[in-house]
């Protein structure tokens, strides 16, 4: 079947999509967007987290056809269009600086989940509390870092995005 949807603000269309295929497979294998990772294909690890109509979801659990006509945002879309080469989104920059990236497999999903959390909190005029960070990232597994540096990165990103509210997001 044919699938049309918007990915990171750009209309995309792909043909010959198998009806049982996941959105994750479409993104990685048909649209050339391998940022979202496939680690478990059962919703357990969160490494495939993308925005679907503005909400973070596991792309491995969305049937391709369910994304028809919808807006998808992936880790590739975090950096605003027109950013200088190498320029990173504040969440990405914070993960790098805090040492929250080791093998990096969990990172794309964590970046999207963090971006969502920070935006939701800042929209309410506050930074996320530690308990909220843990809750928001409960669906994102990391087998390398032990999470402490990830928590540091989220706090750092929230501080910077609070200071500079113009930082753009993929959704």
């Amino acid at each position, binding site marked *: 079947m044919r699938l049309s949807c918007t990915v990171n603000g750009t209309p995309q269309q792909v043909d010959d999509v*198998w009806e049982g295929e996941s959105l994750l497979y479409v993104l990685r294998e048909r649209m050339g967007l391998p940022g979202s990772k496939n680690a478990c*294909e*059962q*919703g357990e690890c969160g490494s495939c987290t993308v925005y679907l109509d503005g909400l973070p979801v596991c792309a491995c659990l969305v*049937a391709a056809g369910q994304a028809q006509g919808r807006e998808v945002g992936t880790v590739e879309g975090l950096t605003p269009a027109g950013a200088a080469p190498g320029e990173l989104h504040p969440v990405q920059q914070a993960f790098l600086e805090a040492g929250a990236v080791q093998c990096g497999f969990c990172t794309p999903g964590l970046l999207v*989940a963090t971006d969502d959390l920070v935006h939701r909190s800042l929209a309410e005029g506050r930074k996320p509390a530690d308990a909220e960070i843990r809750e928001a990232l409960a*669906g994102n597994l990391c087998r390398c870092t032990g999470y402490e540096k990830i928590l540091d990165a989220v706090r750092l990103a929230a501080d910077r995005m609070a200071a500079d509210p113009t930082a753009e997001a993929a959704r």
Partner: protein
Amino acid sequence: MDFLQPATWEEALEAKAAHRDAVPIAGGTDVMVGINFGRLRPSLLLDLTRVPELQQWADDDGAVRLGAGVPYARVISELGDRLPGLAMAARTIGSPQIRNRGTVGGNLATASPAGDAHPALLAADAEVEVASTRGTRRIPVTEFYRGVKRSALADDELIAAVRIVPPRGPQQYSKIGTRNAMVIAVAAFGLALHPDRRAVGTGIGSAAPTPRRAPAAEEYLAGELDGLWDSRAELPAATATRFGELVAEASAPIDDVRGTARYRVHALSVMARRALTWAWADYRKGDPTCA
């Protein structure tokens, strides 16, 4: 495989009547796992996410009519005050990503003994509204579960909604798993106190072939509370303990990878005692929701 995307409820029911082996897909959090692992190869996937009626909830004749396709995240954010027991259960489900997609309708149709919506729905005397081109019927949730992952849904029917009367008394939900997020329940317990009817509702999860109530525990507690509803006096500790024992006696658990039968029985007695203690404390404070 075919993929159908009905845009209206009528179209969805017609599609299901015409293709009885079609597998409906809502949030996909059960269905896609099955497809990704090759366990499920339906001839037709029936996507229900475009049917507007399923994505809504409304007050209807004294009850909240919760569309089968409303995701858990919205049950929590929009109905936490009206349906506190179900919202508490929803908060324990999966992760934010899962709660943004997973639905009560999907939980019901999967009818896993471990589904977290079930104990809350049982305790609240919910009704499941199912429909087909033949018509609509309401099934008391106690009669909905027919066996391990089997329900009263006929092969041409879809779940339209669940109907739950917003409670007049406190509700609680308690779940035991290996961590605080992302766990299938080892055992779970839902409680609703109904001071208006002087009745008690219970729901047991993950400790029998189907979700089930604990009728003897309900009767016992309703009897003990008979003199206490009006006085709102302290609940004797022995009453809470006995209630816990009776809830545990209503279970019929098995040993499996998540826990032993013995552990589940013990866990249930503790959860039921605690849930009652919390709920009664809320009732004494006069807090009707304790959400």
